[in-house]
């Protein structure tokens, strides 16, 4: 999802995962929750250099206010997660929905208690630094909600 949307809106190639770096420079974290049969918390950490590059390319270098820069990046995330949850929904045959993303300047510190049964890590590389994504999730039985 990140690779195709990033290529479409910002013409930046996200590549196969490089070795996971311990630190991301000036991190920007995005937390997205989903509810429904696919209950998840997805935490993505971007280097601010990549965030700025994506926004600059989306705006075609038009000057934007700080609020609009954040709004552009949030729309980028919405597009990525819309694609992501659509694929999950088509796979599970049931509708899950994501909650509007929260963007944090800095690292997101999750609570030590993981309320989800499974966790997957996915990393992407780019010319502007790496993106780390951690997906914690449960696929609930069909009769459950949330």
């Amino acid at each position, binding site marked *: 999802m990140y690779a195709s*949307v990033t290529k*479409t*809106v910002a013409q930046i190639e996200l590549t196969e995962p490089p070795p996971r770096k311990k630190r991301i420079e000036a991190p920007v974290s995005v937390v997205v929750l989903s509810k429904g049969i696919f209950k998840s918390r997805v935490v993505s950490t971007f280097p601010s250099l990549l965030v700025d590059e994506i926004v600059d390319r*989306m*705006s075609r270098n038009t000057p934007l206010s700080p609020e*609009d820069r954040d*709004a*552009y990046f*949030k*729309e*980028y995330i*919405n*597009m*990525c*997660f*819309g*694609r992501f*949850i*659509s*694929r999950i*929904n*088509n796979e599970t*045959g*049931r*509708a899950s929905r*994501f909650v*509007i993303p929260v963007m944090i300047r800095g690292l997101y510190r999750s609570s030590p208690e993981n309320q989800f049964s499974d966790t997957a890590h996915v990393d992407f590389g780019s010319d502007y630094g790496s993106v780390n994504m951690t997906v914690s999730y449960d696929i609930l039985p069909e009769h459950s909600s949330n």
Partner: protein
Amino acid sequence: MKRILIIDDSPFIYKEVAATLEGLDYEVIGHAKSGEEGIAMVQELQPDIITLDIVMPGIDGIETAQKLIEIAPNTKIVMLSSLCDHDTVSEVESLGLKYLVSKPIEKEVLIETLEKVCKE
């Protein structure tokens, strides 16, 4: 010239749609950033076509579409969303709406869709 209202909380989508339609036979007459604002603007501006986002704060695009169909039955609605799974498509179709353009928007797809809307 067809008059278009964009209902979408994203300034990026508003600018993308407006830029795509520049120089074509469409006039973007407004931008509503929520469903509630969109409903008010439709009553005031009476656009020919509305582009409507699905995931928005407050009332979502599906609920907004239901209300718009009641208050402006002759206005055409094109849904724009990154949600394009079978359930979302069915939900849109169940409202009697034929057009769902996926985000990120491909300019040719948007123009082609609007041409179809205009021919109806």
